[in-house]
């Protein structure tokens, strides 16, 4: 949807995912959109180097989120919000349905 502007579908997916979930890691985003981790990782790197995202290690996982100090953050989020509203309802719903409650280790289901 924003590919002509952003130059990459993977970049759009990364930004849309982070807009909906606030923070995430490469394999989660890649798995959600059924894309390769390397595709997603390279976009995360570009966005972090450009100051759009920031990351920090949580345990052994590098978590990414929007840089609250990015100069165009409000404008970017407004654009992404609009783009997200044009996504299929099923995707919008899945993006919003994020399990945040704990899950015991080794639980089969």
């Amino acid at each position, binding site marked *: 949807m924003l590919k002509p502007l952003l130059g990459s579908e993977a970049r759009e997916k990364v930004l849309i995912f982070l807009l909906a979930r606030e923070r995430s890691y490469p394999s989660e985003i890649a798995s959600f959109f059924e894309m390769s981790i390397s595709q997603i990782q390279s976009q995360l790197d570009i966005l972090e*180097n*450009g*100051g759009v995202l920031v990351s920090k290690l949580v345990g052994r996982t590098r978590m990414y989120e929007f840089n*609250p*100090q990015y*100069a165009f953050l*409000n404008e970017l989020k407004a654009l992404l919000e609009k783009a997200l509203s044009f996504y299929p309802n099923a995707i919008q719903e899945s993006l919003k349905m994020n399990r945040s409650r704990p899950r015991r280790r080794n639980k089969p289901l």
Partner: protein
Amino acid sequence: MKTVKDMTQLEIAAFICSHLKQHAIEVVLSGGALTSYYSNNKYVSKDVDLIDVYSVSRRKLISAMQEIGFVEKNRYFHHPDSEYIVEFPPGPLTVGDEIVKETYQVKFSTGFLTVMSPTDCVKNRLAAYYHWGDKPALAQAILVAKQRKVNIEEIEKWSHKEGKPKEFQVFKNMLS
């Protein structure tokens, strides 16, 4: 002129700033090195953060830095004769959501260094505290505010615009 090996952190920053200016690349000192400058070196860091105000092409930046012996590795620039690490965070030049309007030129034996005002330096450090809860950044903001004349009213207004009035009170209380 001094060799890179003998340059202090700020002299290296000035050397790079002047060199890049010849290539029409505008950079402004920020982060820990700026805190060092305004705290009379009471705060020490090995980083040199120079905001690349107009976000020039990376290739142009790498090429210009290579001319003075700095090599890029993982987006950080190193010189074989120096312990300092140079980074160019992308512009625009802002503190939080606000554009920095005024900068100043400071003369060193190695060149001219462009810096923000002490008030903007405090805002820059406070932005890290406000958005990430970074306590060392708060301590740096206090250090600069105690060493230099800063406009507290302006910082308070800015803090309100950033949506951080309570956090500003923490800063103000620690100042007195």
